[in-house]
């Protein structure tokens, strides 16, 4: 599985450049700049949404107006000017709902090919179904008919609002309430597109589902919303990937992801996040402020979050698990790389509510350049949660002397039967390791990439094969120039 070879080749090919940094020139439809009720109505109308959803948005907006931007993360950044952002931008050609690939604007298809995602090929070869979100709209969803035959719903969330109102009404905002936190509330007011998945009872989704998010337009924010429901006894593996053009200004990405897992069901959710991280001097890059939460409502339900975070100027993200059903299981596997001036404050929350629930947290933070990497995690055991277990392991790897790694674990155990274990290490790539690799013929970048991939192995192993290769390449690329 380890593909140091490809890593190396890619490292050479791109030689330090963010290769996803180009801009697609395409005619766009935008909402007027700034945020007010009219803009929200504009978005809702564009999406031909039912009335209840518009009301839901407006309620969230009113709540948001009363909220303050949080400043507890250990992050240092200039707060966005919310009136200087476009909240809706979509290719004109995507004015109607997503269609079959043949009808998609060729300019868009080219964009994805350039990003290494050949939609046609994906459809034929790899058997991964993809939902493609370009700025504010979903422009294509592959394999949807094949999936429908098995009862699996895989579509954009805008379509779901029209076609599956019962499911949407029942579950939207049921895990991350509209008033949850500053950025989640903003998202509830202005979310544009994202993916909706429903796996019916007893169905094992026959293929990997994925969404590819692309920010293209300048001065836009991307506010996507993903909702996945795994009904009793079902299983799905879902992947998301993301990129954006290189720009000197910071762009905001504030997403909400909600997962609902019923009795004996399982969701495996993997992310490879590669938003533009800004340049070497810390100019530009994406602000990635994301709320991701899974509710394990059923007994013996299971959720597994795996994330490889290499991009973004700032990441603020804590995929969480509400372990409600007895015997439910939450897992969090994370690799967060920060280089140059990148900052990441990321971790997870495991809330043990049901009996015999268990959770595992494996976090690998890698810091290079002048970057700061913070693991922030909460393990909470509620009074009625008998016999819960948590294992947490946080490892930090430092490359160079100017970067930092911090671990902030919070533990609140209100039930004495809880068994909680926590391990943390901080290490450096040693001169001895580097020389050992060089003596065997590897060059410095190959050596760093190999050592870092080894450091992250427990997390990388959790990724589906296609993603693992991609993620390994990214590790190598994002650390370029960090040594020697």
């Amino acid at each position, binding site marked *: 599985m*380890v593909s140091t070879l490809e890593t190396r080749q890619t490292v050479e090919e791109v030689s330090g450049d963010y290769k996803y940094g180009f801009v697609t020139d395409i005619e766009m439809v935008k909402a007027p700049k700034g945020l007010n009720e009219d803009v929200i109505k504009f978005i809702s109308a564009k999406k031909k949404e039912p009335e209840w959803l518009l009301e839901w948005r407006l309620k969230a907006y009113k709540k948001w107006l009363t909220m303050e931007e949080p400043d507890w993360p250990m992050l240092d950044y200039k707060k966005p000017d919310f009136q200087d952002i476009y909240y809706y931008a979509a290719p004109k050609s995507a004015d109607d709902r997503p269609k079959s690939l043949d009808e998609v604007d060729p300019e868009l298809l080219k964009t994805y090919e350039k990003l290494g995602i050949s939609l046609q090929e994906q459809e034929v070869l790899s058997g991964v179904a993809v939902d493609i979100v370009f700025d504010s709209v979903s422009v294509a969803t592959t394999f949807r008919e094949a999936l429908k035959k098995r009862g699996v719903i895989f579509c954009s969330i805008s379509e779901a609002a029209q076609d599956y109102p019962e499911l949407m009404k029942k579950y939207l905002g049921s895990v991350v309430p509209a008033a949850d936190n500053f950025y989640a509330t903003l998202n509830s007011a202005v979310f544009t597109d994202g993916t909706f998945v429903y796996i019916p009872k007893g169905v094992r989704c026959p293929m990997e589902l994925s969404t590819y998010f692309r920010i293209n337009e300048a001065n836009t924010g991307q506010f996507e919303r993903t909702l996945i429901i795994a009904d009793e006894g079902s299983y799905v593996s879902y992947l998301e990937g993301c990129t954006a053009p290189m720009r000197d200004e910071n762009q905001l990405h504030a997403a909400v992801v909600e997962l609902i897992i019923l009795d004996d069901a399982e969701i495996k959710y993997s992310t490879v996040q590669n938003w533009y991280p800004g340049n070497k001097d810390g100019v530009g890059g994406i602000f990635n402020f994301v709320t991701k939460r899974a509710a394990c409502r059923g007994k013996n339900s299971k959720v597994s979050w795996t994330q490889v975070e290499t991009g973004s100027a700032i990441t603020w993200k804590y995929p969480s698990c509400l372990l409600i059903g007895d015997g439910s299981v939450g897992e969090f596997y994370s690799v967060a790389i920060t280089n140059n001036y990148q900052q990441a404050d990321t971790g997870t929350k495991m809330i043990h509510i049901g009996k015999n629930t268990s959770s595992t947290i494996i976090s690998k933070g890698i810091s290079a350049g002048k970057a700061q990497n913070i693991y922030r995690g909460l393990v909470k055991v509620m009074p009625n949660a008998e016999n819960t277990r948590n294992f947490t392991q946080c490892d930090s790897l430092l490359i160079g002397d100017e970067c930092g790694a911090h671990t902030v674990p919070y533990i609140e155990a209100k039930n004495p039967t809880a068994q909680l274990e926590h391990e943390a290490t901080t290490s450096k790539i040693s001169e001895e390791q580097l020389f050992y690799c*060089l003596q065997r013929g590897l060059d410095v970048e190959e050596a760093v990439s190999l050592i870092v991939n080894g450091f992250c192995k427990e997390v990388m192993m959790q990724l589906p094969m296609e993603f693992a290769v991609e993620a390994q390449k990214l590790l190598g690329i994002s650390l370029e120039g960090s040594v020697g």
Partner: protein
Amino acid sequence: MTMLEIKNLHVEVAGQKILKGLNLTINPGEVHAIMGPNGAGKSTLAYAICGKEGYEITEGSVTFKGKNFLELTANERAGEGVFLGFQYPVEIPGVSNMNFLKAAINSLRKYRGEDDMAAVDFLKLIRAKAEELEMKPEMLKRAVNVGFSGGEKKRNEMVQMAMLEPIFSVLDETDSGLDIDALRIVADGINRMRSPEKSILVITHYQRLLDYVVPDFVHVLANGKIVKTGDKSLALELEKNGYAGLGIDENAA
């Protein structure tokens, strides 16, 4: 052409003068042994040949097959065919022996302008080499040197050498920590590397290894220089009389 020519080599580590005018010439096909008291600078010499960072060459030259070696980086020197069997092999967590060697082989091939080795060929080769050195196949899947016993680490170095097929190997105390059977297995491995085109420099404290791997020359390194050179009988003599017998104060390396 000479394999390795070291002239008047002066090396400083952390501002400390370790090697002070060392001369050594090794021809293709020759096996040389270096002995000497602890702290004499034997490993320092090995590192200086292989280009380790922090080993500052303040004077002198190292020429390998006619090339000025001091101009090359450590991985380029490896590419030229130099292998170092480490006195203290390094652990690389999470990277399997197998993947490490695959990366190494393909880097060396790339340096020499060759294509990557086919995965099937690689597997065949590594299985064969592991068997020759009586290393259990499971060890190949384990992370490089992590949790290996002292002797297993040394044997692992030999598997790497056998895989990478260097033309010049420096083996820094590869015999320390080996049990009696392992010593013979490793010695056989070294002898398989002997050929008219290849040379070996073994650094050792014991005559034992030299019974199996018979050297053409034995040198004694002390006070930062080669102070005596002889044939294999010099090792026997040292074993009997110690360095004091040569008039070398063991404490004043």
